[in-house]
C-alpha cells in the first residue's frame, strides 16, 4: 500500500516538475509547479512529519506560488512570445542533464552507509512538540536570524520595486 503510494507520488513529482520546465506558457509552468509542491508535501506526510507537510503547503503553495503568479500577471507574460534557445544550446542542456544525473547517481549509489541498517526504535522525534523544543532550545540564534532575514527581505523587496522618481 505505502509502496504504491510512494511510486504514484514520485511519478507525480517528477512528471509535474518536468512539465514545469518544458511548458511554453509561464502560467502553465506555475500551475504544474503547484502540483509538484503538493506531491512533495505528500512525501513529507508519508514520512509522518506533519509539521513540515503543513509548513510546506503554507509556504510554497500558498506564499511563493501566489507571488510568482502575481508577478507573471503583472508583467503580462501569459502570452507565450518567448523565442526558444538555439538547437545547440538545447542539445547541450540535455547532455548536461544526463551527465549530472549519471555522476550524482553513480557516486551516491556506491557509497557505503555510515549507519549499517535502518531500524525503527519507535522514538518520537518529529512531532510538533519535539520540533518546537529543539527549535527554541538548541537553535534559538538561527531562529532569530531567520526572523531578521525575513524582515530584511521585506524591506529590500519594497525598496527595489518602488517607483524611481528621479528617472521617470
Amino acid at each position, binding site marked *: 500500500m505505502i*509502496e504504491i503510494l510512494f511510486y504514484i507520488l*514520485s511519478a507525480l513529482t517528477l512528471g509535474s516538475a518536468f512539465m*514545469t520546465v518544458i511548458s511554453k506558457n509561464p502560467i502553465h509552468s506555475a500551475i504544474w509547479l503547484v502540483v509538484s509542491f503538493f506531491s512533495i508535501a505528500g512525501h513529507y506526510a508519508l514520512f509522518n512529519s506533519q509539521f*513540515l507537510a503543513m509548513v510546506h503547503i503554507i*509556504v510554497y503553495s500558498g506564499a*511563493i506560488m501566489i507571488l510568482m503568479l502575481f*508577478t507573471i500577471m503583472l508583467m503580462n507574460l501569459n502570452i507565450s512570445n518567448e523565442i526558444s534557445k538555439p538547437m545547440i544550446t538545447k542539445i547541450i542542456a540535455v547532455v548536461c*542533464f544526463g551527465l549530472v544525473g549519471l555522476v550524482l547517481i553513480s557516486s551516491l549509489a556506491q557509497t557505503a552507509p555510515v549507519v549499517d541498517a535502518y531500524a525503527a526504535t519507535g522514538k518520537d522525534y518529529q512531532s510538533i512538540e519535539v520540533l518546537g523544543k529543539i527549535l527554541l532550545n538548541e537553535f534559538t540564534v538561527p531562529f532569530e536570524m531567520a526572523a531578521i532575514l525575513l524582515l530584511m527581505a521585506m524591506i529590500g*523587496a519594497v525598496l527595489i520595486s518602488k517607483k524611481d522618481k528621479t528617472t521617470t
Partner: protein
Amino acid sequence: MEQVLQIIGIEQYIYLSVILFCIGVFGILYRRNAIVMFMSIEIMLNAANLLLVAFSNYHEDAQGQVFVFFTMAVAAAEVAIGLAILVAIYRHIGSIDIDKLKNLKG
C-alpha cells in the same frame, strides 16, 4: 505503526532527489524566461529538502527537519527579493529574457 523507510529504503529517496535536482539544472539551462528559471531553482531547493527529511528519518534525528525549516525561510526571502529585481528589470528593459541582459558584457 510501521515506518515508510522500512518498506521503501533510503536508496529510492536518493534517486528521486537526484532526478528532481537534475530536472532543476535542466530547466536552468533550457529556458530563457527568468521566472521559469526561478521555478527551476525552487525545484532544486525542494530536492535538497526532500533528501534532508529522508535522512532525518533515517537517523531518527530532528535536526534535519529544523534545517529544512530554515531552508524554507531562506527560499521565501530569496523569491521575494528575486521577483522584486525582476519587476525592476522589466520596468527598465521591457522584457525578462535573460539573453537581453548583457549590458555588463562590454
